[in-house]
């Protein structure tokens, strides 16, 4: 009986969460449709959330490209197909690791910051103050962060793709003596413009996940400083799980059907 009760409570909590997120998405879309956008705040958020994440995104992408190249070059040279390393590195970076790793890094850095900031505003009654003044917290806080991430995450992904390929190219040359011309030629054969665009579509979807989950966790914060801590952790964990799951579904839909 207790198992059933727990299952029921869990289901209700899940549905409540889902309903909350859907309601947040609906209200955000309504604000966007009515062009109720705070442009200055969107610009500030783009700068803080996007530019602030650039270095960590570049570093993780650089090392990821380098390690893919290291592993694949070792095997490829052994089998006499070293000329395909450029294709392997670029293919993996542009279609999968670029968008996903960038999103995971941004979820850790920005998703947590959004949840913590909005959560602190909840516990210090700043959100109630906005509502009391007749201002929508969604228009005031969520929409600028959503737009900032929707602009900046694809941009960061482009940088991540480039630096990952450059890192891979460097290791391929230094470790397996594959010259850059061969590497680039292989990359161009393996990956088309369409793949880059699809990777950026993934980044856009991940941006929405990070923004909505971070904002929702922040807005539903309860219980003071401990509650802010819980909201922050949940924002990161839920975002990362959703990013991985969505990445699989999108890879299947975008790349897997042909």
């Amino acid at each position, binding site marked *: 009986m207790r198992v059933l009760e727990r299952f029921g409570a869990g289901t209700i909590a899940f549905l409540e969460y889902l309903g909350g997120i859907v309601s947040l998405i609906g209200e955000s879309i309504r604000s966007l449709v009515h062009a109720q956008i705070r442009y200055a705040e969107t610009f500030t958020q783009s700068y803080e959330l996007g530019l602030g994440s650039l270095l960590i995104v570049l570093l993780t992408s650089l090392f990821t490209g380098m390690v893919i190249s290291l592993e694949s070059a070792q095997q490829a040279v052994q089998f006499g197909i070293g000329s395909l390393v450029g294709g392997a590195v670029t293919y993996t970076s542009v279609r999968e690791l670029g968008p996903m790793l960038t999103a995971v890094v941004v979820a850790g850095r920005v998703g947590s910051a959004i949840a913590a900031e909005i959560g602190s505003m909840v516990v210090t009654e700043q959100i109630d103050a906005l509502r009391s003044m007749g*201002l929508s917290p969604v228009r005031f806080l969520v929409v600028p962060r959503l737009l900032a991430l929707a602009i900046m995450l694809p941009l960061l992904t482009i940088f991540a793709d480039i630096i990952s390929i450059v890192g891979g190219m460097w290791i391929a040359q230094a470790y397996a003596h594959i010259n850059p011309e061969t590497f680039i030629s292989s990359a161009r054969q393996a990956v088309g413009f369409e793949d880059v665009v699809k990777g950026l579509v993934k980044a856009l979807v991940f941006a929405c996940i990070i923004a909505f989950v971070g904002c929702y966790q922040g807005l539903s914060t309860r219980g003071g400083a401990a509650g802010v801590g819980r909201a922050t952790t949940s924002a990161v964990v839920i975002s990362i799980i959703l990013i991985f799951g969505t990445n699989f579904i999108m890879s299947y839909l975008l790349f897997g059907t042909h």
Partner: protein
Amino acid sequence: MDASSIYARLDDVTLSFGEHVILKNCSLDIVRGAITCIVGLSGAGKSTILRLLDGLIEPSSGHVYVDGHDLCHTPERKLVELRQKTSLAFQFAALLDSLTIGENVGLPLREHTALPDEKIRHIVDDALESVGLRHVYDSLPNELSGGMLKRAGFARAIVTRPELVLYDEPTTGLDPIVTNLITDTILRLRQKLDGTAVVISHDLHSIFRMADYVAMLFEGAIIAYGPREEIRTSTNPFVQQFLTGSEVGPIPV
């Protein structure tokens, strides 16, 4: 008391979260143009009444009327309109950390009116002047003391010239001098706005200085209500125990 003299009303309001009942069949009239102070034990639901009057929460049953409008089951868009008439000064001011004091105070004007920047600056300066804080326009909230923050919160609350101002524990945690200053400010603002105010407070000295009417909340219901002097001299044992601060009486310690 005729209906036109009542600005806001809680009508048989019950509010509960799960099994936890906060207000139980609570009714209260807020007289137009008067300062009504609500007293009661900590956790009695006093701040909840302010949130109900501001439309931030809805009762489980009963009705909340402000200037003749029922706030219950009202769509958020209509509530936004009605909230222009009321203003809540939060216990800890609840100013937005990222904005300066001037930007905080001017926020409702910038968002709800099409006034030019110079006009907004003039109104904000005037609001800050009326709480004695004109010099902190460019300061951030974390640069101000607790008393100054509360007064900055008052300035934001009055900047749109609301008809009803709700003060949530304006003197809690302040020294006697600042408490007097805050009490004077509330009295001065009432005169300036010529409006209605509801004040939640535990400070009996300041309550009996500013209140026209006093209501006492106990276990989710109003157990005493009347003009200030009537409450001060009340023989109600609950009121007597609360006013004297005695541990002996019907209120369990």
